[in-house]
């Protein structure tokens, strides 16, 4: 017999498929993983601590930089909590604008996931196709608020910029195009035998495990649990629109793929209704005091970001700055299951599983 021994392989923080500066120390036997130790924190910037010395408007740009793939929903998570604390009235037009950008952001975020996931699996083309559509969305955002990635668009009480002339028309025109392209992606990828062989049955867990680990978003819905904060704890004006919560019973990487692709479709549905009902005119800022100073107390509000439940817990002592601000970061929570899923898999599956969880390192490290 040949003498064999386990190999310690350090994957990351510089590695093409850790999606940023994630590091994982693997103990492998041949190509089979015996032990996996994730190491996080390479992108930690102490957002929560920084927030204690900033007023509420100043914190908003920091949320952009947490989940930089989906900055709009993060903006909203913060302003939503502050508004809930101060019980502010938001003008109709502002609510619509927020909802439209958030749903567009969800599509853009899922497109990034779709593209990079396929890149992880070894197909290069879908990435460029997905970025074509994302580019359209980014251009729309650019027109709206002058930024392509970190928008700083929402404010406590409303939004900063009104939609320019013809913007809603452009969104309206984009939707059928996106529907067509989504079908194209399904044609290109969803039926591919190699792709199916790579994702079906990989990284499987059941609903109870998912709940125990506190997973949310597509990672939870892929086990068949119908839980979407847009439906179950409606915020903003989501209760006015018709859409379905995408679920899939299997709980493997394929389920997560199906759920995310379906969510793009549902987002398009919401957007189609939203652009129809969009109020022709109105205020974009509510009546907000000059200095935002919530009364003493605590509040927690969670919303459904593309990655799961992002929540903001604020403790206020009646000052302009929060006494303590805590983000419930979905990428961080979802990542915790990784260690359990990796044992016994081979290195190739590690990439598939990690990609399937859909993490953004800015959010994991906070």
């Amino acid at each position, binding site marked *: 017999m040949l003498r064999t021994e386990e190999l310690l392989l350090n994957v990351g923080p510089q590695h093409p498929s850790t999606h940023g500066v994630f590091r994982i120390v693997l103990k492998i036997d041949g190509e089979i993983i015996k032990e996996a130790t994730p190491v996080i924190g390479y992108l930690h910037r102490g957002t929560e601590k920084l927030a204690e010395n900033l007023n509420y408007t100043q914190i908003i740009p920091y949320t952009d930089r947490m989940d930089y793939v989906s900055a709009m929903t993060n903006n909203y998570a913060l302003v939503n909590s502050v508004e809930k604390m101060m019980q502010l009235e938001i003008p109709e037009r502002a609510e619509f604008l927020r909802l439209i950008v958030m749903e567009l952001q969800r599509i853009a975020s899922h497109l990034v996931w779709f593209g990079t996931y396929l890149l992880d*699996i*070894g197909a*290069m083309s879908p990435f*460029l196709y997905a970025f074509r559509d994302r580019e359209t969305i980014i251009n729309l955002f650019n027109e709206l608020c002058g930024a392509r990635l970190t928008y700083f668009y929402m404010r406590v009480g409303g939004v900063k910029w009104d939609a320019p002339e013809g913007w809603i028309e452009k969104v309206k025109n984009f939707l059928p195009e996106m529907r067509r392209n989504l079908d194209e992606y399904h044609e290109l990828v969803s039926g591919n035998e190699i792709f199916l062989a790579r994702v079906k049955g990989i990284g499987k867990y059941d609903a109870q495990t998912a709940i125990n680990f506190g997973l949310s978003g597509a990672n939870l819905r892929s086990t068949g649990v119908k839980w979407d904060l847009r439906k179950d704890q409606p915020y903003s004006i989501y209760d006015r629109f018709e859409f379905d919560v995408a679920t899939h019973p299997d709980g493997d990487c394929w389920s997560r793929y199906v759920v995310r692709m379906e969510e793009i479709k549902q987002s398009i549905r919401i957007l189609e209704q939203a652009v129809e009902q969009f109020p022709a005119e109105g205020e974009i800022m509510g009546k907000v005091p000059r200095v935002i100073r919530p009364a003493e107390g605590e509040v927690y509000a969670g919303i459904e970001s593309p990655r799961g439940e992002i929540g903001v817990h604020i403790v206020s002592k009646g000052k302009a700055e929060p006494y303590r601000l805590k983000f419930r970061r979905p990428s961080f929570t979802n990542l915790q299951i990784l260690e359990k899923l990796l044992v016994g898999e*081979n290195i190739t599956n590690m990439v598939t599983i990690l990609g399937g969880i859909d993490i953004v390192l800015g959010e994991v490290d906070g």
Partner: protein
Amino acid sequence: MIDLIQSQLTFTNLILLFIIAAVLLMTLLGFVSYAIYFERKFIGWIQLRIGPNRTGPLGLFQSFADILKLLIKEDVIPTKADKTLFIIAPVIAFAPAFIVLATIPYAENLPFADLNVGLLYYIAISGLTTLGMLMGGWASNNKYALLGGMRSAAQMISYEVPLVISVIGVILMTGSLKLSAIVEGQAGYIWNWNIFPQAVAFIIFLIAAVSELNRTPFDLPEAESELVAGYHVEYSGFRFAFFMLAEYTYVFAFSALTTILFLGGWHAPLPALEFVPGILWFLLKFSFMVFFLYWIRATLPRLRVDQLMGLGWKVLLPIALVNVFITAIVLEIIRN
């Protein structure tokens, strides 16, 4: 050419042979430069991009600029690498790739060395490249490179077997291992081409050969999403270029061999079209095969290691064996 090879080795002959070899090498380097250029262009178009278009008109000088860049790069050898092996590995990977080209008959009057065992020679020599990859992976003293090298060895062993067995069908049909004889056997109409009677063998050969080439969807030894760059992760500058050169030389060799074995070599699809020079037919079919490789590279994701092994041993090998068996029986019936 044949006369030259069989004649006595004199000083003049030696110079002549040397010149011919140099011409072949230049042709090859020209092919590799433009194969890379066209690959980038085609895949660019498939992926809604433009591809290289800055260096020279339409970007035609892009590859030369890249080669120049690789030439003037610092030659890095990792401190803990096995120096000797590290240096000779790229050469071992490239040399067989060039050597196999010697037997390929491009047109009726243009074989360099028409060996009686040409096909066997091709398959035997091309297997050596894996040694270079394994060596490079081992010598780099890098864990990713080692895994890449090991994968490459495992893949070669698994796919060489169905590759050879699939070709046996063709050999049975022709009764010769000589490449020019195999082409002659496919003369006449298009249905004489081996791709039709040996369709199963063709598909197996295609899959196994793409795997031998380490290209998508079988590019596991250099799978960038897992192994960063696989066996050549520590290589840079011209040593890296040698690995690239070997890869593209095999693209050349593979396309030429497929054309010869299955697509009728230099023969026109119909006898009426024979007035077009054979070399053009050859180039046409050859280009199609090269394009085919680009096409699947832009379309397919990558297989997993265990799936790759499963496909090789459990699917391709049995089908190839059955194909040989059936071919033999049918030929026996027809000939009697």
